[in-house]
């Protein structure tokens, strides 16, 4: 038996063992599964076992882009307007103050940290710092598994939804601002025009696919049409050097609000969302490569800054909006889980030919996911149980 074959067997057995073990851990300690896929990806990747070589990773680039588009569409599908307007406006105000404060605080701290740690000028590190700010604003939807009607659960859900949407929008528009120059006729396209194209792909794409899907009822056919739409929008964005997250987010939001098959679309999206999340984690693990910079300090700083920002911003938001009577002072602990969107933004940043510390940004997001996957749900559960 060749060494490569032995290695493949080891990886397969490691996957199965890890999965069974995590099944038990998830039941026993309420740890969200996911970290094993990230670790498996790292194990398979070019910097560990090398089963997935650099060439294989490059070949997989279109699939990684697709996983990003799918993530965007899944977030977009959470924005069903008739349901959203039933949520009291104070929840939106609280969420907006929370994610804006987190975004600004983390961006500022990381800007200073990058400039100091890597001896860059501020203008050079604006892009990675704001990207990490956007990643920090995103929150995993840990509260979605609760069905009880309680202000804390509604607030956590609202914050997770809005935070993720804000993170996707901020990052995608940021890429439009720093887009490489593309000449059309005698001049280059402006940032506003790139932003218009980015939004246009999503809105026009969403509308066309609403018409395309029509009254289709059969789930298999609906799935193929939806997958085609997301693949096409992801591909168009990647081809134009834009992030697929925002266009696909808009496709998801358009479809869920206009289609008569909303329930079936949401059900299908939910059934694929988790495997797609795991695939994203696998890709992310394999895609990871150690930075040539001294990355440990910025990564640890990011995790601490985000935690502090989330806790502080949540408290500030509750006080400033006047919802402190409904929410406890430490409701921000329910927002600590990082989730898919943060990792997707980091991956999109690295895939988009980013030249400034892409591996540091990616490693920071990955560590944050690893840590929050281990403790996020448990902390959120404790909070919800205490409040109930």
């Amino acid at each position, binding site marked *: 038996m060749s060494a490569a074959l032995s290695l*493949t067997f080891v990886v397969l057995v490691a996957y199965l063992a890890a999965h069974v073990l995590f099944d038990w851990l998830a039941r026993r300690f309420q740890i969200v599964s996911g970290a094993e896929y990230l670790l498996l990806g790292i194990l398979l990747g070019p910097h560990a076992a090398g089963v997935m070589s650099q060439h294989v990773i490059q070949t997989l680039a*279109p699939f990684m882009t697709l996983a990003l588009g799918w993530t965007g569409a899944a977030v977009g599908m959470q924005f069903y307007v008739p349901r959203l307007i039933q949520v009291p406006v104070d929840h939106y105000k609280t969420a907006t103050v929370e994610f804006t404060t987190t975004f600004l605080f983390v961006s500022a701290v990381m800007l200073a940290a990058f400039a100091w740690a890597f001896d860059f000028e501020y203008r050079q590190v604006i892009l990675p710092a704001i990207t990490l700010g956007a990643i920090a604003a995103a929150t995993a939807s840990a509260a979605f598994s609760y069905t009880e009607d309680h202000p804390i659960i509604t607030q956590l859900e609202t914050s997770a939804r809005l935070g993720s949407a804000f993170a996707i929008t901020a990052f995608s528009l940021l890429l439009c601002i720093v887009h490489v120059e593309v000449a059309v006729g005698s001049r280059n396209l402006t940032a506003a025009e790139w932003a218009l194209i980015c939004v246009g792909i999503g809105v026009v794409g969403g509308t066309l696919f609403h018409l395309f899907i029509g009254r289709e009822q059969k789930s298999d056919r609906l799935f*193929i049409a939806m997958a085609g*739409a997301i693949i*096409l929008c992801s591909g168009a964005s990647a081809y134009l*050097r834009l992030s697929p997250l925002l266009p696909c987010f808009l496709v998801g939001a358009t479809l869920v609000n206009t289609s008569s098959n909303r329930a079936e679309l949401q059900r299908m999206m939910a059934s694929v969302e988790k*495997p797609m999340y795991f695939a994203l984690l696998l890709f992310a693990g394999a895609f990871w490569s150690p930075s040539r910079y001294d990355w440990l300090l910025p990564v640890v700083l990011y995790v601490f800054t985000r935690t502090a920002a989330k806790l502080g911003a949540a408290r500030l938001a509750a006080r400033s909006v006047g919802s402190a009577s409904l929410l406890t002072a430490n409701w921000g602990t329910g927002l600590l889980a990082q989730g898919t969107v943060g990792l997707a933004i980091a991956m999109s940043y690295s895939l988009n030919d980013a030249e400034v510390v892409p591996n540091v940004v990616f490693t920071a997001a990955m560590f944050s996911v690893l840590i929050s996957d281990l403790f996020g749900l448990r902390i959120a559960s404790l909070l919800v149980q205490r409040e109930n």
Partner: protein
Amino acid sequence: MRRALILLLLLWGMAIIEPLGRSAPASQALLTFGFLILAAYTVGEIARAVRLPMLFGYMLAGIVFGPSLLNIVTRAAIAQVSSLNQLAISLIALLAGAELEWKAVRGESIGYLKILTAEVGLTYVGAFVTIVVLSPHIPVVANADKTTVTVFAMLLAAVVVAHSPAATLGILTETKASGPAAKTALGVVLTSDIFIFLLFTLVATGVQLLMPSSGAGSPGLGLVLWEVVGAVIVGTIIGGVVAFYLRFSQRDLLLLGLIIALLGGEIARLSHVEILLTLLTTGFVACNVMPSENTIHFRHGVERAATPFFVVFFALAGASIPLAEVRSVLIIVVPIVVVRYITIWTGTRWGTRWADMTGPPAKHLWMSLIAQAGVAIGFASVAAEIYPELGPTFRTLAFAVIAMNELFGPILFRRALAKAGEIEP
């Protein structure tokens, strides 16, 4: 009509963004790939509306939008997503194995072997004779000696007898047919995969005794035996592990199916065993060794994962058909295809009588054996490399025969199921 109009709008949109993007094949691949899925889906729907199989529509879309005609899906884009094609083949084989039931295999395998002996034997002889008769019109062998003509005909006939497990499974998944005709067709086609693989290897080895290889040569008999026996061993081990795993967990079975297809294909490649047979055995063992509720969930998970891959696989198969080459050799190919139909029909009748099989499954079985796809293409590529001087003509002829059977096979199989009363006509 509405969908076709939207497709035109999308085509127009692609033309607008084309000058604004980068020319890297990787980034272009996803764009064209997404378009191909929607185009294939639309043409598939149109095909369904006129009572043709959707698979036919998928392939037609591949031909129309592929490099042979509109070139929206370029050769570079096809190459870029070739790994997806590999995964599709692995998934299709895994699903095929998962659909097989031990009871049916145990009870019917001797009957299947009898049918295949008659059908494949007669088709091989028929194709061989036709190719020899047509050889004066085939440029590369027109003035060749008898040995070269014999070798050419033996190899091409070995490609002509192949069937398509992918097309069979694709139609069964599309129509949800599960009656006796569907089960018999699936059983015969899957058994033929091993049968024909052995036949092809024997022929590829045998022709080199007549005329020594001037190219890569074919693998030795020992290696071939390992490819078959090793595939069963490797597939059984992986399937056993999966069956054991399924006893304890039913989480993320769709993802598990994808991972098994990926890893199984890689293990088969590394062990130099036949990939299709490995994944087929994996699916079979996983779903039959320790059957449980989780096994059914696993089968549904793999089915769900494989559905979009059918669209991709057949659309890409259509896009890969070299239309210009097929046109240039049509006069030689049509008689071969006609003889193949006749011999499959006759051989199947003899075979079913020998196996004491009666009723609609026996009567319409021949229609399910017409389709050809991946297996035959693989054989053609290997055969063309044995004699490089015959290779280009051999490849063109073989691909043209496969293309015709690939297009019309699914239509006939769907008709067979309708005639057997297992689907709506």
